[in-house]
Every structure is written in structure tokens, then in C-alpha cells.
């Protein structure tokens, strides 16, 4: 990528709006071009400062505004519903009540029986691989461009309330590219995008338990436990700490992926 192209894409890159391949290319350019890196740093400063200026400290959200509107809405709706209901004769109202009870009973039976949940047939590893492939193929953008694990972890915590705790990498082969918030099985999840030896890899963290990982193979070594699985040419590794499931997905080795979880073996 030339400096001209880098400047052309810089704003979209900083806004997290470039697709993953172009982001990686621009990130590489910034690593080798001090002038463009300096430009990016200045623009980051402006962006941060804009955030402060456009979200002033006194701009505390009027949470009660929504409460007031909802009170108005509920009161108006309640009056309307009662007046509509009273227009019907008694026997029609009784019939409606009986139908409602029947519906509740049928619904309750299905609920107790444990009806199928969305994605119930899909294993956790399968879901993570599908999500990773979708991210790459759909050209989904990263919402934060950062190679700083601390900055990305803080950003993810604010957006998803999930403590991603991205590890500091010990070697240059593994680079953090950026992050985005997402959902896995309807749960808020932290997503980080890495490059390991030029190959893409993802990190996902979400609140969960070992029940999420029961279909994966459990590996206990040196007092530490992780889970591993393989699916559609990808390796998936996972661990659980303090109620947070952390997982890494990619086409590289299990050991390399474990480094994204801060669990790589020394040497």
C-alpha cells in the first residue's frame, strides 16, 4: 500500500469501517511508515478529543425522560385497552378468557417440555467457526482499530460488559488488529481480530460455563485446563476464568491459538 492510498483510507480505518483485509494492509503500512503513523496518531488525538467535546461531562442522559414517556404510553394504552374490552358482551369476554387460559396452558406445556432453542443443534465450536467465517467473508468491519490489548480490553468491557482480558503478546508473530462487539447465541460477546504469522484468527469472550464447552475435548496440563475442538478446517481452543468463556479460532496450531488466551507453553 502506498502512502497516498494509506491517507485515502485513514479516516475509514480509524472509524473501524475498513474490511479486514484492507485494515491489515493499512496496519502493516503504518508499522513501516513513520510519517503515516504520525498522521494516524494525530487523527486519533483529534478523534478522541472530538469524543470529549461532543459528549460533554454535563451531558448526563435524562434517564427519566424515557421513564416519563413510558408512563404516558402505558397509561394511555391501559385506558384504550380497557375501553375496547368493555365494548364486548359478557359471554364473549368469558370466551376470550377461556381461550387465553388454554393458550397459556399449551404454551406452558411446551416451555416445560423444553422446546427447541435457536442454534440448539449447533455446537459452541461450530458457532464460533461460523461467526469467524462470516466475519471474514462478509467483510465485516472492526469497530476499534488497535494493536494495544489494554486499550482493546477496556473498549470491549465498556461495549459488552465482558472482561476480555486480551493478553500482551510476547512475540511479533501474533498481532492484535482490532475489536468489535457481537453476540453469540444471543449473548453479548467481545470479539478481537488477530493476525498470527499473516493468518487471520479470532478471539471471543462471553459469559458462560463449562456447559458451553461440553462437546469439546477437555485437556488438563500443568494444573491448567483448556478445551479444544476442530471444525471445518479450523482449530478452536477455549478456557473458562471467573465465569467468562474465552475462545480462539483459526487455521493455525492449538499452541499458537492458546497464546491468544494467554495460555501458551513456554519454549
Amino acid at each position, binding site marked *: 500500500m502506498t502512502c*497516498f492510498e494509506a491517507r485515502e483510507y485513514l479516516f475509514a480505518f480509524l472509524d473501524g469501517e475498513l474490511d479486514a483485509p484492507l485494515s491489515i494492509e493499512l496496519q502493516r503500512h503504518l508499522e513501516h511508515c513513520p510519517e503515516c503513523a504520525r498522521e494516524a496518531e494525530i487523527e486519533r488525538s483529534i478523534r478522541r478529543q472530538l*469524543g470529549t467535546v461532543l*459528549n460533554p461531562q454535563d451531558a448526563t442522559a*435524562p434517564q427519566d425522560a424515557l421513564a416519563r414517556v*413510558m408512563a404516558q404510553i402505558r397509561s394511555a394504552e391501559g385506558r384504550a385497552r380497557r375501553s375496547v374490552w368493555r365494548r364486548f358482551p359478557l359471554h364473549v369476554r368469558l370466551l376470550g378468557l377461556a381461550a387465553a387460559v388454554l393458550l397459556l396452558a399449551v404454551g406452558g406445556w411446551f416451555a416445560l417440555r423444553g422446546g427447541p432453542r435457536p442454534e440448539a443443534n449447533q455446537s459452541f465450536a461450530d458457532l464460533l467457526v461460523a461467526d469467524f467465517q462470516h466475519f471474514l467473508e462478509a467483510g465485516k468491519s472492526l469497530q476499534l482499530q488497535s494493536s494495544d490489548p489494554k486499550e482493546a480490553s477496556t473498549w470491549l468491557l465498556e461495549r459488552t460488559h465482558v472482561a476480555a482480558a486480551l493478553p500482551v503478546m510476547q512475540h511479533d508473530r501474533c498481532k492484535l488488529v482490532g475489536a468489535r462487539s457481537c453476540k453469540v447465541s444471543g449473548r453479548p460477546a467481545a470479539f478481537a481480530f488477530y493476525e498470527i504469522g499473516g493468518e487471520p484468527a479470532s478471539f471471543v469472550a462471553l459469559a458462560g460455563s463449562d456447559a458451553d464447552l461440553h462437546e469439546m475435548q477437555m485437556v488438563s496440563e500443568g494444573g491448567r485446563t483448556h478445551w479444544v475442538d476442530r471444525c471445518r478446517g479450523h482449530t478452536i481452543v477455549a478456557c473458562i476464568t471467573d465465569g467468562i468463556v474465552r475462545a480462539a479460532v483459526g487455521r493455525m496450531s492449538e499452541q499458537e491459538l492458546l497464546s491468544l488466551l494467554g495460555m501458551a507453553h513456554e519454549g
Partner: protein
Amino acid sequence: MNSLASAFEAFVAPHVRRLWALARQYARTPEDAADLVQETFLRAWRNFSPTHEMAYRRAWLVVILRNVATDWGRAERRRIRVTPLDDAELTEVILADATQPFAPLPAMDEARFREFLDDRLVAALDALPAGFREVIVLSVAGELNYREIAEVLDCPVGTVMSRIGRARRALRERLADHAAKGRHCSQSSGTPGCGGSS
């Protein structure tokens, strides 16, 4: 039980903070901003339907807020600070600035730049053409991504990307102007017109 009202509340609640930040930019005073947010909620409720594809999108709320601001701007301009432009006006603003879209950005001394950034950014932002200011407000205060801004402004995502690029470039140029003026003032203190921090 009112499930539609509950669904509406659950949909709107996560966006209150962003709508408020946006309203603070569109409206002149905090009181007007509070009215703007409240009117946005009421209009959104009147049009809310779970079967309406747009109804669950954050951008939809911003479209409504912007429409309320537009109505206010027509009726009582004193309440509105950022006037939403229609597309034709915005195109004119952009074309006027499109001669050299990717020319080098003005050079700036980084240390000096950081020193004056805090107090001059507001002035530089206010000096931008309204259309440029609005895309920056939507992006930063509204935290909308380009696709959402495209929905709000009813234009293609590529257009949003170029508008934001040009808006940021224009902002940078104004900041560089301020920096140059600041340098001139600090070198010749007492120069008429350089006093104060306005």
C-alpha cells in the same frame, strides 16, 4: 401487561445516552435537548411496530430525532444549533470542497497541536459548513457507523465515507489555521487581534 410498550422500552433504553448526546449537538440548550429527546421518543412510539423492519434499528431513532430537529429548525430556528441539510444542499457543500480530495494534510507540530487542541477544537468544529459538522456529529456523538449514517442521510455508504473524509480534512485544515494563528500570536504578543482566547 403491555408487551408492545415493554418491547419499545427495551429497544429504546440502550440508546438514550447516544440520543441525548446527539440532541445536545442539534439543540441550543440542554432544556431544548431534553424536549427534543422526549419528542423523539413519542414519535418513535407512534410509529413503532415490531413488524416494521426499520423499527428495531438504532438509526431509525436518529432519523426521527433529525426529523424533529428539522421541523423545529423550520418553525423556530432559535432552538436548533446544527441544521440538518437536505441532500441537494449537502452535495453542494461537498462539491465545493472536492477539488483536491486527497491532497496532503496540512503539516502540524505535534506538541503544539496537542497544547491547543482542547480549546480550539470547538471553534474549528463550529466553523465547519453545517453538512460537514453534521456527519461528524452523527459519527462521534451518535456513535453511528457508516451504514447507519447512510440510513439517516438516505445516501449510499460510499458517499458517507467520502463525506466523512472531507469533513475530517476540513476540520484538520481549520485546526491547522488556528495553530498557525496561535503561533503567530505567541511570537508577537500584543499584536492587535491576537488577544483573548475566543
